[in-house]
């Protein structure tokens, strides 16, 4: 009782107390099942350690027991927002091993659809990124446009997300009758929709405060850590695989590589917003200049014959039987094919031993490299900036873990 008047001695130790916080794997803003182990000093992040592998499904192992053509549906599931980019990259790699090339119509169709995939992927990124920061309505706008793209994918392939539309040697089937109309309608209206998003965000004071000057990493460190794609371009390096190592006829298209120099979350936002417009431009060029002709390469040992021929020609029937029952042999060798996916450098390393199944398929996925740089961007910053920075990396956990 007599001590009541004395000041209570602080029990706080001299060293600031650190707290370990588990963020995820079940957290809505980690965009999947990412776990971050955070060491916090108050609201400041002292150390961050990503823990991945929760979505590891062993796709690379599974590829080794499938025939080459059967691997295509697995590639959809690696990055489920950029499924066609994965289809394309794998098909290009195997085509390189086989020494065949898809005909012009298939190449242009591939360009058109992968650019729509880029728009689709960026729409999901923008919607969820804005939702994380608190701008809820953007999400609804983005998913409205995404629905149009998914309808187009469904029209082409019968599937909204797991399309598997590209095959080794070309496309699964020619575009359906009347495909131009919905694509044209979408491309006509899309630029004004991008204006709408920009009206909502680009000069919104809350958006600016949350994103400007946040999540910066020096360019050299990003290159060192394996970061690719829009993050690199937002830091001032105009490197885009579509320009530097053109594939699938990209050299015939006219487009710009948007860049910014700030390297913060806002710059990444600006780069992706411009990529919306550039992708729509490429898609429009592909739509307007779409060549005619076949959609599969003239390689009877690889590509299934048309139904009509199979029923009238003995040779076609034999090839059909061989491809379906056994698959096709791919000459021994190894290739690495890189494409510019919406997230950065996507590479497939395919090793063949001369058999009908790939000996090894390695996927160099952009999210894996990009996520590696996360600790550097958030250490020393506030806890709330983690969400902003993570959103700007645009990772897909299926792409990280495979």
């Amino acid at each position: 009782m007599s001590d009541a008047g004395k000041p209570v001695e602080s029990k706080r130790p001299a060293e600031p107390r650190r707290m370990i916080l588990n963020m995820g794997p079940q957290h809505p803003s980690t965009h999947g099942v990412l776990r971050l182990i955070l060491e916090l000093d108050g609201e400041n992040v002292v150390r961050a350690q990503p823990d991945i592998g929760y979505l590891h499904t062993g796709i690379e192992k599974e590829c080794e027991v499938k025939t080459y053509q059967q691997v295509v549906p697995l590639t959809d599931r690696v990055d489920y927002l950029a499924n066609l980019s994965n289809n394309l990259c794998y098909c290009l790699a195997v085509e390189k091993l086989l020494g065949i090339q898809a005909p012009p119509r298939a190449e242009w169709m591939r360009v058109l659809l992968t650019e729509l995939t880029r728009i689709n992927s960026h729409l999901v990124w923008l919607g969820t990124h804005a939702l994380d920061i608190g701008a809820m309505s953007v999400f609804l706008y983005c998913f409205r446009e995404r629905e149009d793209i998914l309808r187009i994918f469904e029209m082409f392939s019968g599937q909204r997300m797991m399309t598997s539309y590209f095959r080794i040697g070309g496309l699964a089937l020619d575009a359906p009758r009347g495909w131009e109309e919905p694509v044209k309608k979408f491309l006509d209206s899309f630029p004004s929709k991008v204006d709408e998003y920009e009206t909502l965000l680009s000069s919104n004071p809350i958006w600016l405060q949350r994103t400007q000057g946040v999540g910066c990493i020096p360019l050299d460190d990003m290159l060192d850590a394996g970061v690719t794609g829009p993050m690199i371009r937002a830091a001032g390096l105009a490197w885009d695989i579509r320009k530097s190592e053109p594939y699938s006829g990209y050299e015939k298209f006219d487009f710009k590589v948007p860049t910014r120099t700030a390297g913060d979350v806002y710059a990444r936002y600006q780069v992706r917003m411009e990529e919306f417009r550039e992708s729509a431009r490429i898609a429009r060029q592909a739509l307007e200049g779409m060549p005619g002709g076949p959609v599969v390469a003239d390689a009877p040992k690889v590509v299934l014959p048309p139904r009509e021929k199979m029923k009238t020609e003995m040779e076609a029937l034999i090839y059909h039987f061989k491809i379906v029952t056994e698959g096709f042999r791919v000459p021994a060798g190894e290739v690495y094919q890189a494409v510019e996916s919406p997230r950065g450098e996507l590479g497939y390393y395919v090793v063949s031993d001369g058999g009908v199944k790939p000996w090894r398929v390695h996927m160099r996925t952009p999210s894996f490299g990009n996520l590696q740089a996360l600790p550097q961007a958030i250490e020393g910053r506030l806890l709330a900036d983690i969400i902003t920075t993570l959103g700007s990396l645009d990772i897909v956990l299926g792409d990280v873990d495979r």
Partner: protein
Amino acid sequence: MAQAMAGWDSSAFLKLEQRFGETTIEIAPEKILAVCQWLKQNWQFERLSSVTAVDWPGRDPRFEVAYHLHSIARNQRLRLKCRVGDQTPEIDSVTSVWRGADWYEREVFDLFGIRFRSHPDLRRIMMPEDWEGHPLRKDYPVHGGRYDYADR
């Protein structure tokens, strides 16, 4: 470049292969770190795209570690390959050259069981920490056994 490399250290340089428009150089495994440093400093290979491995059970040495290097300045890609043995597959880590090698090497360690000397944090990355075996080895089954409820 291959000539320059042979002139620089002929014992490191084993074989050059050019196919499908891609260049592959086989490197003596004990020289990989020195070769990577040299390539980064003198040939502007500022990026390491990926590190992975291939298992060839019939061959000796059994594993191939493949490094995909990329130079944005020279717009060039290069694949380095090292063969490492069966008993104690081990190779020097290149994390001191490219920081990004960290997770790729952990992945190879996890899925193939190849150890990287002087790696800062060599732990499993995809599989749980108490996992047994290395799933991407060819002698690892693709499908597990049927789960027996009587054994619970």
